């Protein structure tokens, strides 16, 4: 079981649980306060944008070309931005801290 701390758009903190192999977006879209993830994880819509705390950011594989391209277009993009549909959770991500990005 992987525990994830999430800060939602209102600043409220939540703790959620996931399994190894889950994509972060699929975990987050389950909640009212979660991500919209309209395209269902096709890296097509950028509605699952999150910020990762820096030391966690470095523990995921780098964003590929398509994801970078979408991120480039977001008003709320920050150096620690990722699309959560592109992040696969592994056991070493237990304790991950993420903040949801505002809707564009």
């Amino acid at each position, binding site marked *: 079981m992987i525990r994830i701390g999430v800060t939602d758009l209102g600043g409220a903190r939540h703790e959620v649980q996931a399994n190894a192999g889950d994509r972060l977006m*699929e975990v987050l879209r389950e909640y*009212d306060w979660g991500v919209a993830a*309209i395209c*269902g994880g*096709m*890296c*097509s*819509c950028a509605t699952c944008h999150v910020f990762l705390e820096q030391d966690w950011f470095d523990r995921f594989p780098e964003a590929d070309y398509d994801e970078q*391209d*979408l991120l480039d277009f977001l008003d709320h993009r920050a150096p620690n931005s990722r699309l959560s549909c592109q992040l696969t959770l592994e056991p070493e991500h237990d304790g991950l801290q993420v903040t949801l990005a505002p809707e564009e």
Partner: protein
Amino acid sequence: MGENVVIIGSGQAGLQTAVSLRQLECAGAITLVGREPHLPYQRPPLSKQILTGEWEPARCLLRHAEFYAEHDLRLLRDRMATQLNPAHRHVLLDDGTTLDYDALVICTGARPNRLRFPGAELEGVCYLRTLDEAQALAAQLQPGAALTIVGGGFIGMEVAASARSRQCRVNIIESQPRVMQRSVLEPVSNFLQARHEQRGVAFHLQECLSAAHGDRRVESVSLDDGRRIATDLLLVAVGVRPDLEWLEGSGIECGRGVHVDTHGRTSIDGIYAAGDVAETLHPLLPGRQVLESVQNAVSQGKAAAASIAGRPQPYTEVPWFWSEQYHYRFQMAGLPRPDDELVSLDTGQPDSLCLLSVGGERLHAVQCINSPQDYMAGRRLIGLAKPLALDRLDRPGARLKELL
């Protein structure tokens, strides 16, 4: 607000309406009525990851099973509405029960167009709209099996790609001169058809199915010109139509779909519609449109919920859509208009495409293959609806985002 809301249809639009109502702090009763035995699920993977076997069916679910009780959403499955009575504010279900409502949301989606032809009843003739249908088709896509698809639209093309990845032999029969003609610009049709042909898919354009042949199970199909194609499976994928029949006699205003404004309101007070069933006004589009997409279902569901909650929020988002075939990601936003000029942009990337549909200096639509940055720029530009300085793109290496 203690309103009693009934939502007919539990697909993407129906679920979104329910979720948005709770997010907007509507505390009243919410009942979702779904035709299928499953929990609400998303349809885009049905022609892709479910057919290829990449996904377990449960991964399509839009919310986990406990979500409904946790949010006090009453979900009725395996139930259809059969009649709407606005004067008494109730709907009749197929099991004879009656549901009263203060607000009703029509989210019955669309049903596949059925084709009539000799042999239509043979085993192996199938349609694809539901998870059950997708699983049944997936089970039959064995290596070496021959699949014939009537209809070269998005569903037909996506199924062809999925079937090729499972080493099936694929033929596509399309009555129009090019594939996906209704929705995409000609270079997109040509690009994707060529990629399918490179992978062994055979196209029969401007041809119609005349019959399916076989003893008990389909063994071959014949075309109008008399040719025969041996096949193990025949998928009919010739578009959908809004599911409206149950509204007959209700007096609600319909055209191709249920007429709604940008707030999801129909012609009858207290009744709303969203998703594939709705025919909507939209500030960026001409006339009324039935928009068959996840984005549209979500946006309209939100708009209907906002109206019911008394916090109206019109639907103004640029309509967008995507498809995946092999490793080609097609993305489009806006709708081309008949007299538009077609502009092709150099994407700077191999094996990709970016097309603009421009009229009166406005960008009406962008259609891209494997060029997400141009697509995102185009989507923004359409929403801005300002005159486009296209001449600034007349140099090598120019990118669409420079016009933002």
